[in-house]
């Protein structure tokens, strides 16, 4: 009935909805025009250090990786295949408080096969990020076989 890939916003939401781990974390997309913000709703199960308390650094990194993937689906389209992470570098700027986390990604460059994406995550103030990520992602359009398949 509906042929080719849905409109970009739905594409990003669909990409997230298709990832079991994103559903496990409860991650949801919020779209304002063409601006995509991902939300990681707070749960006690996200805590890494109960003494502070602080969010687990791993889940903050994982959330930013999901944000990069969803933004690539929105910006570049992924043709039914999720981009695969090649590498990423995560900087932890502040400890994550026990409250919701937001993240937004900027696609710095999309080449034929590789995309470079920068992500920032924040809580109470956009200007006070708790973490930042920069990474490279392999775009897997049907016409681009992945390296391990060749």
């Amino acid at each position: 009935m509906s042929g080719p890939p849905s409109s970009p916003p739905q594409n990003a939401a669909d990409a997230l909805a298709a990832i079991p781990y994103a559903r496990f974390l409860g991650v949801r997309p919020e779209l304002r025009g063409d601006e995509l913000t991902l939300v990681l709703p707070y749960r006690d199960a996200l805590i890494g250090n109960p003494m502070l308390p602080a969010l687990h650094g791993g889940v903050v990194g994982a959330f930013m990786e999901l944000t990069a993937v969803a933004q690539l689906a929105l910006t570049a389209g992924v043709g039914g295949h999720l981009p695969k992470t090649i590498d990423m570098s995560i900087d932890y700027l502040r400890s994550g408080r026990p409250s919701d986390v937001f993240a937004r990604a900027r696609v710095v460059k999309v080449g034929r096969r590789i995309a470079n994406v920068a992500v920032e995550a924040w809580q109470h103030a956009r200007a006070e990020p708790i973490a930042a990520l920069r990474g490279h992602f392999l775009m897997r359009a049907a016409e681009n076989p992945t390296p391990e398949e060749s």
Partner: protein
Amino acid sequence: MPETPPESPADHCEAPSPLFERLKGFAAQMLQAVPHAQALGLEITDIQFAKAFGRAPYREELVGDPETGVIAGGVIITLLDNLGGVAVVAALEEPTSVATLDLRIDYMRPAAAGRGVCAMAHCYHVARSVAFVRAVAYEDNPDDPVAHASGVFMLDAKHDRRRRGDPGGLKKGGRE
């Protein structure tokens, strides 16, 4: 006669630490105090001097790509980050709180579909304020890795004060 026998070179090679030996004793229970590690089912399987070993068991809800059935990269990040912190503590002589400053991860290949991953983290250098870690994730063989990571962890400021103010204090052990 000196009260304690002089240290032999072998003592430095072995680098036995009372702290890591104490940690080793309750490695299996260590992550029970970390809610998100519990949520993912992460396990620590062994602790050696400056090293931590662990695993993330496969669960369908932790899959990162439904097309391939491979465990999510985010789970691997969390395992490597958590083991990195434990490896740092296992390199110190007193319990100290640590926080990740940065973490870089290279994915060499997808993990095997339908399988969990194991990982090993090694704290290869402890400086005054920070400690440096390398880590690797794999299914069966560390020489055939899924991912490599390198990270820097901040040490609690109290650790720094003790080092500068009372070098002997490091040997005494125990919590303040």
